[in-house]
């Protein structure tokens, strides 16, 4: 759709685009870092999934197989603007799941490594790790909101 059909003031599309890019790049690089760390040693990732005490061995194996790849794919999509709105929404949902899992572990008094960035950077689950994940989720959500507004207002230039 041509840009001239936009009903937004001229400076708003640029602001929306910049906000979406900054938020997507930030979330994308974090997901890429986490995904690469998990792909490097999926066996350790299994132990971290199991430590949450939410799933059994078979599900943990499946998650250890799929989650790191999903993080990598989402990271690439966010950085390269491939299916951007879908990637931003899936990222938000994924991070919301991580927040819920960490919250449950914290409420149950589990003192475990959150498993966020692999074995090289273990960090015990705490309000800080939940806050960090929440900030990332909010970033992905903000990117999705900007992308949605741009798309709806007709300033979307295609993928």
């Amino acid at each position, binding site marked *: 759709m041509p840009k001239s059909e936009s009903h937004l003031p001229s400076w708003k599309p640029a602001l929306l685009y910049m906000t979406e890019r900054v938020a997507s790049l930030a979330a994308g690089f974090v997901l890429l870092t986490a995904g690469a760390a998990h792909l490097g040693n999926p066996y350790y990732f299994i132990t971290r999934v199991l430590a949450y005490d939410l799933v059994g061995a078979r599900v943990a194996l499946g998650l250890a197989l799929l989650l790191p790849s999903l993080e990598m794919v989402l990271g690439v999509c966010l950085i390269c603007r491939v299916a951007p709105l879908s*990637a931003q929404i899936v990222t938000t949902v994924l991070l919301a799941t991580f927040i819920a899992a960490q919250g449950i572990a914290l409420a149950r008094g589990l003192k475990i490594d959150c498993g966020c960035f692999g074995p090289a950077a273990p960090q015990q689950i705490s309000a800080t790790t939940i806050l960090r994940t929440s900030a990332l989720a909010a970033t992905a959500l903000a990117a999705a909101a900007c992308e949605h507004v741009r798309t709806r207002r007709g300033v979307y230039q295609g993928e």
Partner: protein
Amino acid sequence: MLAMTAGALTLIFVELIDAVGAADRRRSADPARAAIRMQAGPYCGIYSLAGAASALGREISLADLISTRFVSSELGSSGWDLAVAAHAHSLAAEYATGLTDWDLLECKSPLILRISTAERRDVFNHWVAYLGVEDGKARVLNYPDPVMLYPFGELLSRWDGSAVIVALGAGNAAEVVRHSRMRGLVAILGVFAAVSLFAKYACHLARGSRLASGAVAIGLAATALAFCHDLARPGSLLRNARVAKVVAVADGAAALPTLTARELRDALDGDKEELPVLVDARLPRDYQRGHIPGAINIPAWATASSRQEAISAIPRSAHVVVYCQGPECSYDEDVAAQFVGAGFERVSLLPGGWPEWRTVAAPPRAEDGG
């Protein structure tokens, strides 16, 4: 919307902080577990270095390595300490982090790996020497055991990706690190190219909702990447699925079958050819004070060699029942995990342990003294 989300999250955090504070107060240190941590000792690093040097044909006396230069804290050596110790004994060494199972399998030199102990999987405070592959398993020198074969998956699940690469020439050690970094870079670039092409192509092909087609494309790309990556890697998860179960049992996450003391007594009174093998996972002194008749003692913190020796004497088809000092004791899960890892199909737990057996099922034998 964001403000509402932030407000809700703040409330949740306050509740969670209160909850974790209360949980902390309830928890107390377990002296037995602390004893296990100390068993690893501060000298595992230099012991591993001596073993790695020996594998390269250089003998280094442990006495020469016991120095504050090479063991810089009461917890033991750091990776840099071990590299310095290797240099001081005319060996080349590189301390590297972020290594993967590819590096382990392709490296021709011994590596000293930083791993976690059985007690805490997220605390990496123990060094072992990795000396190559034999019969598809890792040859590992794990202080104070001799060189033993470990399943790769089990070793990898305890490794943090850090290693001191020990070699005869400086170029060999540096080359391993260079190859590892190059492989990582190529993999990242490959993922970028493949995902971009795949997802774009899938989006163009899809009709209907762009949002849904994008999500499906992302899911397909992630699944394809997961399977391709796993099947290409030497330490494939799909080919080592048993590891997940071993880890799950050790962490208490997988539900092994359980027996009550009465059920165990019935089993012991039943078919004599189907008698379960009873394994007592407690301290030897507790075992000597009293145990279930016929039980053998395999403590959770027994050395790997003695544990493997005991396990190898039991037929794989046997029904193994592991017990400990009651429901609060988790050592039976650690020992049961060893049996699962060794290929035993019928492993059960007696959650009530020795106290339940004494009070509910049967009085202890007089000669047991319990």
